[in-house]
């Protein structure tokens, strides 16, 4: 790796990290104004134009609050948990391709921090750590609501991660690695979805792998603990779950972690199923500056649409019951995902022969 590449990677890391931090206020205002729209009310509109500065006002409020550490907590874990919640989804963003790339001379600036050959595996490995934050927080605060929430969180993550991984496996299987590095590299999965069938039909995985798409969609809500699967922090039962004893900046870190996880999952859905930065009828991967910028915009538009879906679902659906959640995970999604894998394998072999 040349010095230039290292410097460029560092800049990309900084840029992505900053962008993610800024995605949180955007998502917050989107959620708050979006829910107001759904619920027939105005929402926050006093802070800045259209209330756009509201999240910053909230953040300022949280930062300046007194940072209380309750006496009965396990100090080490209590301090580690918010960091964990924030870091895990941020780190996972390393492999998400958010644009095609720009070629300058013989140097290619790809819009992805690291394009591993085993990007998907890296991603799933990191994602499986996301429940640690919840467990640490729930356990450390030595509070019954927190403990219950941690138990729920871990059970939920474990069951839905399996379904999610199996859904991704089907996608990996159906990805043609001829055009890229390997079918487990994120860039290959995206590149493979570019272009069209028969000249007009998008080659997106959502059409070739519809079952995997819906399994991933359901698991995505469960992984980020959002309604209808928000058992970990369902206010009416567990007060605030694993966040109960947190305040000030530690609370806002948990909160940000949650929104970054939401941003990550939306990005993954876009990458795996909605064609990532590609547009079916236009080739954006030609390396030109215009193509590169356009691809980032395409990615962002898709990403916003999925994030809006999150908000839409949250404010429309009631919450499931815990046993029903487990039933859905183990009795419906996992078997379905397995069947999907087998079917994909058969179709793949049949197409090749």
């Amino acid at each position, binding site marked *: 790796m040349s010095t230039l590449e290292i410097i460029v990677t560092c800049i990309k890391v900084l840029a992505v990290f900053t962008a993610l931090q800024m995605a949180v206020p955007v998502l917050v205002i989107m959620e708050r104004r979006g829910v107001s729209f759904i619920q*027939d009310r105005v929402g926050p509109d006093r802070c800045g134009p259209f209330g756009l500065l509201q999240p910053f006002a909230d953040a300022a409020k949280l930062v300046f609050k007194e940072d209380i550490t309750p006496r009965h907590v396990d100090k080490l874990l209590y301090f580690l948990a918010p960091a964990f919640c924030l870091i895990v989804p941020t780190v996972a963003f390393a492999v998400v391709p958010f644009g095609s790339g720009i070629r300058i001379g013989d140097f290619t600036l790809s819009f992805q921090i690291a394009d591993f050959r085993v990007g998907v595996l890296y991603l799933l490995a990191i994602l499986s750590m996301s429940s640690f934050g919840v467990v640490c927080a729930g356990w450390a605060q030595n509070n*019954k*609501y927190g403990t219950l929430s941690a138990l729920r969180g871990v059970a939920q993550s474990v069951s839905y991660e399996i379904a999610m991984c199996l859904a991704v496996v089907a996608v990996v299987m159906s990805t043609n690695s001829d055009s890229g590095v390997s079918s487990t590299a994120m860039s290959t999965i995206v590149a493979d979805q570019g272009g069209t069938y028969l000249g007009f039909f998008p080659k997106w995985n959502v059409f070739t792998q519809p079952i995997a798409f819906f399994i991933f969609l359901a698991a995505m809500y469960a992984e980020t603990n959002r309604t209808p699967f928000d058992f970990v922090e*369902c206010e*009416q039962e567990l007060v605030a779950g694993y966040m109960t004893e947190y305040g000030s900046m530690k609370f806002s870190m948990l909160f940000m972690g949650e929104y970054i996880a939401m941003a990550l999952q939306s990005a993954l859905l876009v990458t795996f199923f909605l064609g990532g930065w590609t547009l079916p009828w236009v080739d954006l991967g030609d390396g030109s500056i215009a193509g590169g910028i356009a691809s980032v915009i395409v990615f962002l538009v898709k990403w916003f649409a999925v994030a809006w879906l999150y908000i839409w679902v949250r404010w*429309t*659906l009631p919450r*499931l*019951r815990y*046993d029903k959640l487990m039933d859905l995970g183990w009795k419906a999604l996992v078997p379905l995902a397995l069947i999907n894998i087998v079917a994909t394998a058969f179709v793949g072999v049949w197409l090749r022969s």
Partner: protein
Amino acid sequence: MKTQLKKADGLEPRPMVINLGPSHPSMHNTLRVIAELDGEIIRKADLEIGYLHCGFEKIAESKTYHQFIAFTDRMGYTSALCNNIGYVLAVEKLLGIDVPERCKWIRVILAELARLSDHVMSIGLMAMDIGAFTVMLYGFIERELIYDVFEASTGGRMTMSYPRIGGLVKDVPKDFGERVLKFADRVDPFCSEVEELLENNRIWNERTRGVGVIPREEAVNWGITGPLLRAFGVNYDIRKVNPYLTYDQIDFEVPLRPEGDVFARYKVKMAEMRQSARILRQAVEKMPKSGPINIDDHGIILPPKDGMKGSIESLIHHFKLIIDGIKIPAGESYFCTETPNGELGFYIVSDGGRHPVRMRVRPPTFYNLQPFPRMVEGGFISDSIAVMASLNIAAGELDR
């Protein structure tokens, strides 16, 4: 789902005891559920109430009959007018007087509007506790519109103290009928919208159907009344069995459901809202367009305020009535009305003095809440939240 707690080395297995309340997001009031958990399942539940005990019954013994009207608002604050009307009717029963026809119809309309506002809220909060937050805010829109009607006629939005013993504070505005009808037309679209949002949803059905059921005979035995009892299929509506005001002249149905679960309670409340709209339409039509609203007995009714400010006789009259209170014959009476939560009764014992000897309020929610442990034991924590929401507790009434 039965798990056995095993004894580990040196560790005594204990069930987890969790407090829901007195300050908890799902307890919209100050009451406390002490739940013994086995994993997610509630093995034993105990209720502790009394956090909002204000001693209204004791206070009533040192207040005149008129003064107590304002306390009834604070008991059932989500349906204050129903409580006001229930109280004044109880005193009127003790006095043995009958109010003019127009007053009766106005009271019917106001009571039904209060019932609507309470049901709208209770359904909204039920949905909110189950996780569908949006329904609650849709309900708030309707409730604000009802409160607009209240404000136009009574001057208050939440606690009105509008009825008086023997009549009303003042007459309703001229456009009262139109305002009521305008609102009555909104009820049906609102109900349809909520039903569409919730009933087609599998999650809502799974969360509410078959939850919190107890046998039907037991429901009566526990003293449950109101929509809750009718969700068990027991046809007991005081507006029908002991008609008061002008309910016997109105054509309406009593919605019943046989199941007794949370879903049935929700459905009964929805159907009752539609019936209330029907009552409103009939009442506006049948209400005398003019006529007295107060009885013609100045030993009971306060003189008009502007007269009191102008003439010394009225002032003395007003002073006497306020200081001495009204003359109530010695005796006792129990009078109950159908409020949104069930049977609200006032048992008043009088010895002929200016204060009651005893004022007992029979609060519907006090009896409705009692079987709560029975309804939730063996179920999930989430179910207990749904059941609690379906009971629609008003702590002001519960603890008094």
